[in-house]
């Protein structure tokens, strides 16, 4: 998997982690902002503030990793794009490798 794709999430600075959480949440299917925050809290125990959530959404949209769908009532759902899926897959693979190394090292001690 391309290193550029793996590193590209890091370009989002302090929004990298919220962005990753949003992408994981959207991997299940399109969701609007409120559903994302609920899902992320249930999944990772991370309570995203609204300013952080929309800071990350705007960046992900700019990168073309998520895209908005037509608004339902006042809420607008977002979906993961094909590029977004590639970036997410690359990042999760990298994380899996790091986790495996960490667990191996812990087991050795």
């Amino acid at each position, binding site marked *: 998997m391309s290193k550029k794709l793996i590193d590209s999430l890091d370009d989002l600075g302090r929004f990298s982690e919220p962005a990753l959480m949003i992408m994981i949440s959207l991997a299940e299917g399109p969701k609007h902002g*409120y559903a994302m925050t609920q899902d992320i809290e249930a999944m990772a125990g991370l309570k995203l503030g609204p300013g952080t959530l929309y*800071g990350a959404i705007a960046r992900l949209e700019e990168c*073309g990793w998520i895209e908005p769908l037509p608004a339902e009532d006042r809420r607008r759902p977002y979906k993961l794009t094909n590029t977004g899926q590639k970036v997410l897959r690359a990042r999760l693979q990298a994380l899996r490798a790091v986790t495996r190394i960490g667990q191996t090292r812990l087991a050795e001690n």
Partner: protein
Amino acid sequence: MTVRQLVRLYPSRWRNRYGEEFVAVIGERHLSAQQAIDIMAGAVDAWTSPSVRASVRGSAAEGRNGGRGGVSMIQELKMKCATSAPRYTTRDALISAGVLLLTTVIVMGAGILARRAGYDELAKATLGVAFPASLIVSMPFMYLKGQSARVQAFFVAVPLAILIAIAYLSTKI
């Protein structure tokens, strides 16, 4: 303070793009202090972050062109993220370095002229601020690239004014 009041802190383009769904996500309930701080920090980010402004601009262009005209811009932005490229190019860095050197030479020249004219204190202060002042002047060409003219003017004018004030005060002490 309600969410609608806090949303007014965001740029109008941002509000047009995200305002309604942002309010819908939070609802009309009373905000916690933590949420209010997060929203205010988000407002600062929306005003200063080139990527957030580009996202909002992209959406606006797409909307104006019936959802198709903004495609090339969006594609361009996708490329920028996917390649993890820095926000400025080598050319920008060279221009910035050129501006930095040129401004330093000019300010130092002014300091030397002041010394020859007998204004020792002024000369000392001018020579002291030559580099930091030049660095500030060069910021729009690299570090502040992509920011609006207003943001660039603010981040150049305010530190320059502070620097000049400090230099002036140092001649009086």
